[in-house]
């Protein structure tokens, strides 16, 4: 009985390095970024936000896709990352005026965006490591619910504890990225990391535990060790995503990373195909594109003399419906959970994969 998410008996995933599997997604992301951000300022803003979401979906993919264990908890690490990077970069004056309850040492700190990103990733990974040590003892549904509980705890703490943030208010005046390029560079770095860790020995072992935990154990894989490792990496990437979001929006609140965020990013991953890096990219791009089209329609569009307006809420409705339909008709996602491949350039080793 398939206890875990998206078991894929015919899809052990990529086992060997193939340039096109790595370069394909990178090129697609770069080209799309410059194509869309060149259109207008608001498109550029949207693109930057999408890159932050892409990093989050990649973070989900590296854990959920490789281990097959469902986690609702990664948004908690995005929260940690967003708050950490925000607190480290908000001007001291603003902190004194707005974040009155803040812990004194935190009030005095101020640094640039890049060092704060590094610290945010480390803090997120540390939190993921500590919680992972406990939570990765669980699997299947218990893991899903326990990681969900983690999200609830993080939300409750960040929403109320004024020592480490603005509580229910907004943390304002977070320095913004100057260009879309910064987010693009970060997203490309994450793509490379996710790909390399996926094809590493440990990545392959973890996917083996996804397919058959007993057999993988017989090969000497410790399910717990591997899951903790990937949970930690995934937590660090999620924290980076949260930090990128904070520097994208110029403000951050606890509720930016709650159920809506969790749902959207999980939907992106599953619609694209959870078992591959390419699936994460496709899912993010597709869901964003659909959402954007619907957003325009919600605002009202004129076809000649006929005005056509979608009601508010139609966006969430369509994305949720797409998720359910994909789960029913194509449970491995649009990409089928396969990595990027040019149609006319068949991989030589396909037979042996």
């Amino acid at each position, binding site marked *: 009985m398939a206890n875990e998410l998206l078991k894929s008996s015919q899809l052990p995933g990529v086992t060997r390095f193939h340039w096109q599997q790595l370069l394909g997604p990178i090129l697609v992301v770069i080209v799309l970024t410059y194509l869309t951000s060149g259109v207008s300022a608001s498109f550029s803003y949207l693109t930057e936000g999408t890159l932050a979401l892409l990093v989050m979906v990649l973070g989900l993919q590296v854990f959920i896709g490789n281990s097959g264990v469902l986690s609702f908890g990664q948004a908690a690490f995005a929260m940690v990352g967003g708050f950490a990077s925000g607190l480290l970069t908000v001007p001291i004056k603003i902190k004194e005026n707005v974040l009155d309850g803040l812990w004194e040492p935190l009030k005095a700190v101020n640094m640039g965006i890049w060092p704060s990103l590094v610290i945010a990733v480390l803090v997120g990974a540390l939190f993921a490591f500590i919680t992972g040590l406990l939570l990765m003892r669980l699997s*299947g*549904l218990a893991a*899903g619910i326990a990681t969900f509980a983690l999200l609830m705890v993080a939300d409750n703490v960040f929403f109320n504890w004024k020592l480490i943030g603005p509580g229910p208010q907004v943390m304002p005046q977070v320095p913004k990225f100057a260009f879309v390029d910064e987010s693009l560079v970060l997203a490309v770095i994450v793509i490379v990391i996710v790909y390399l860790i996926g094809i590493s020995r440990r990545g392959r072992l973890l996917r083996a535990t996804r397919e058959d935990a007993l057999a993988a154990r017989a090969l000497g894989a410790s399910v717990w060790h591997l899951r903790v490792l990937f949970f930690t990496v995934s937590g660090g990437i999620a924290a980076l995503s949260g930090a990128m979001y904070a520097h994208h929006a110029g403000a951050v609140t606890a509720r930016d990373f709650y159920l809506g965020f969790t*749902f959207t990013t999980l939907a992106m991953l599953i619609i694209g195909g959870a078992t591959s890096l390419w699936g994460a990219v496709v899912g993010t791009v597709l869901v964003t594109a659909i959402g954007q089209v619907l957003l325009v329609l919600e605002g009202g569009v004129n076809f000649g003399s006929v005005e056509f307006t979608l009601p508010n*809420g139609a966006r969430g409705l369509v994305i949720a419906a797409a998720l359910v339909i994909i789960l029913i008709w194509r449970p491995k996602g649009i990409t089928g959970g396969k990595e990027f491949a040019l149609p006319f350039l068949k991989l030589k080793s396909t037979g042996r994969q």
Partner: protein
Amino acid sequence: MIQTILDALSYGGLYGLAALGIGLVFGVMRLVNFAHGELIAIGAYLFIITIDLGLPISIMIAVTGTAILALLMELSVFKRLRLAGPSVLLIASFGVSIFLQRLYEIIFGALPISGQIAPWMSGVIEFGDTTITRGSVLTIILALVLLAGMRFLIENTTLGLQIRAASSDFQTARLLGVRSNYVIGAAFVFSGVLAAAVAFVLVTQRGSVDPLFGINITILALVGTVIGGLGSLQGAALGGFAVGMTISLLNSFLGNYRVYTYTWLFILVIIVLLIRPSGLISNKAFKERA
């Protein structure tokens, strides 16, 4: 003090009802139904919209409507996911949940709709110098009646026997002639009826309904179902009851720190899961295979 205990019991009863609704469906098809909250929400909408027709008619419409929506969920989505694992089902129900929330937003609007369902549920009863709220007593009574009713249904009818059989070992039950689609459909209908009951109590307390009406209680009841014991109906009801009691007691005892109630509650949930991953009252057939 008496009020604290009564509040805890009424919260426990309410959450127990919600958890039993989720547990019934989980038992027969291993679906942790996130969308149960939207069943509660449609129940509340139907109560508020039809209350002018008189309470008995309103109850009939709300209960029937909620049960029909529950059955529709099963026929349109979950029936097509029979071979999927519990995690996939969980995500699918997450999708159904968001879908219905947005649908309610489109139909009823994002703003709360208010209405008075049962004014006699509010107010206090006085015993000498202690006063207790009428709502908590009536909630306890309603919960007891419904739990007893469900117990009778499950223990003493053929359908209940089939649901129990399917809950403890679905494959064997099928082999012995239990019609799976029929039993699962019945479980959804009952869970809809229970959702309508929860909606009644909640909408009376709050006096208004919005698209996100059912989320909060569903998250908590769902957690109750899981820690209570996967696949055990008593476990589900008890787990929900325990969660409701815990929230109410934490609210009373944390005082000014009550904003952190959820933190403590969910830390407790994680601890329970770590100690007993298959729940407090576990059912052998549902033990995870590592």
